[in-house]
């Protein structure tokens, strides 16, 4: 469990994290979602005691992480892919980490095998690809079989197989009752992994809720008003389409998009007086939430940049 209370971080006059409070529960995957520069990494660094909060506090399993006597079995974290000395081999790095926590050498073997780095364990980390570096970071995080797993943009640089593996790993750890906290700047990524979402924008919490609440099972909802509602209902009736009559003239349609509804109404010759999408995809909901809170808004289509 991670509990942040009124956590703030200022660098000079710039407030990076602004009075943030949240709780990350064990037994589920909590997604930490926000645009680049929203304060995700800074928040995670404060949880881990690498950065000192300007004000507020954060506790891991009821105490500040900096006072932990068993840090490696308490928390495993991946912050940056390159948090290993380049001239060390993967194995030497993990052996050193294991030695710091009195962990048996069998744990080093176990995480090397789990992350698929067994064959490159004697290679220098400096020669690793981004994906391999990311895997080594995850291996380091898992070394102590920690109660709390904190992963900052873990799928960055991973191939599709690696992405699926991280998702599965996160789900599995949560199923074992661990606390899993994963950051991402992509809603699509989170929607497939997280049970709970905390959305941050410009250092402030924009939303904190179970993922289901962000959108009713992720389906399109449209409000339709028409004179001949009975005819419209017959025209729209199909499998996967849910029709809810709101009043004599209003229908809520769950399933098809508003374009599809309009098309079918046209084909059936029914005049619509209103056609309004009620909710959007998770991605839309996220964009809407953070639109006012993006640090560097692009005016035209800009290339997608990797999160820090």
């Amino acid at each position, binding site marked *: 469990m991670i509990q942040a209370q009124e956590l703030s971080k200022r660098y000079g006059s710039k407030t990076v994290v602004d009075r943030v409070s949240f709780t990350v529960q064990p037994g589920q995957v909590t997604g930490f979602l926000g645009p680049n520069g929203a304060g995700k990494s800074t928040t995670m*660094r404060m949880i*881990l*005691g*690498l*950065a*000192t909060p300007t004000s507020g506090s954060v506790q891991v399993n009821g105490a500040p*992480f*900096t*006072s*932990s*006597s*068993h*840090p*490696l*079995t*308490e*928390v495993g*974290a991946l*912050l*940056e892919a*390159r*948090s*290993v*000395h*380049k*001239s*060390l*081999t993967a194995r*030497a*790095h993990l*052996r*050193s*980490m294991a*030695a*710091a*926590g*009195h*962990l*048996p050498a069998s744990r080093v073997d176990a995480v090397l095998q789990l992350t698929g780095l067994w064959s490159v364990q004697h290679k220098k980390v400096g020669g690793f690809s981004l994906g391999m570096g990311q895997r080594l970071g995850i291996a*380091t995080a898992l070394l*102590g*079989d920690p*109660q709390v797993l904190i992963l900052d943009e873990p799928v960055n640089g991973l191939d599709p197989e690696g992405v699926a593996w991280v998702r599965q790993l996160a789900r599995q750890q949560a199923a*074992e*009752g661990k606390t899993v906290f994963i950051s991402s700047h992509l809603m699509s990524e989170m929607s497939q992994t997280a049970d709970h979402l905390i959305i941050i924008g410009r250092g402030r919490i924009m939303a904190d809720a179970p993922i289901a609440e962000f959108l009713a099972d992720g389906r399109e909802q449209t409000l339709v008003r028409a004179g001949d509602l009975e005819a419209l209902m017959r025209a729209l009736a199909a499998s996967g389409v849910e029709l809810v009559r709101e009043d004599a003239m209003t229908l809520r349609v769950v399933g098809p998009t508003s374009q599809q509804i309009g098309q079918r109404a046209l084909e059936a010759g029914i005049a619509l007086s209103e056609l309004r999408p009620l909710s959007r995809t998770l991605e839309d909901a996220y964009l809407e939430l953070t639109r006012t809170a993006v640090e560097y808004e692009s005016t035209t289509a800009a290339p997608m940049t990797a999160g820090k």
Partner: protein
Amino acid sequence: MSTSTVTPSRAGRVTLGSVFRAESIRFFALRSTQILIVVAVLAQMALAALGIWSVGAFMSNIPAEAGMPNFTDPEVTAEVFGSGITFSQLILGAMAVLLASGEFTTGSAVSTFLASPQRLRVLSAKALLIAVLTGVISVAGTFLAYLVCLPIAGHYELGLELSSAAFQRVLWYGALTTMMVALIGLALGFLLRSSAGGITVLLGLFFVLSILVQVLIMAVDWVKNIVQYLPDQVVSALISPTTSMSSLETWQLMCAVAGWAVIPLVFAAWALRVRDI
């Protein structure tokens, strides 16, 4: 190992001893460390041999005159033998800078301080490691240099004896001041978090500062008292007292060594506690 109740209490526990072990595993796994140790020892051997050889060659070319230092005296020869030690001390000092600055330049500080969020424990483990290691390397280097110099000294009929007080000074004060230089280097690495910066300041402290202050002596008299406490002056006063102009007593020099070893480290500890990683 999924819950703390089934985990043996020792597993996962991080202590000064375990961080020390982690640091030494990492330290010896690095090629750069091994190279610097070898270069430091070779430099110590080479400079000692060069000193003995040049004195021997010089002496054999000119007739002995009154007032010349008597190099057949082991006490005098040992000082020549030890005069090059500063060079290897600075190489080991640079290695100490890298031990600290490397954490920040490579980003490995994140791993290090996640394994031990108590930052001063990491600093203590590194200080312990570098002090023990450089002390041992200095003693070993002095013995190796002795073995190389023995035939040269014999050839020129110079006295060089392990048991002489001067040789013992080179051996033990050499090790002590090497540890001091390494701890200054470590502190600089933590303070500046930059390899180039740390090494530059370390070299500046030993070469530039002394020269600068010695120029000032001409103008201001009280500066003379300060210059004696500069690290390079302390090293030469301890290792080669007859050629040094130092007027400090041994206990004063020891205080200076302790001060240089501890005070920069205290600043480094404070900075490490306060600054973000």
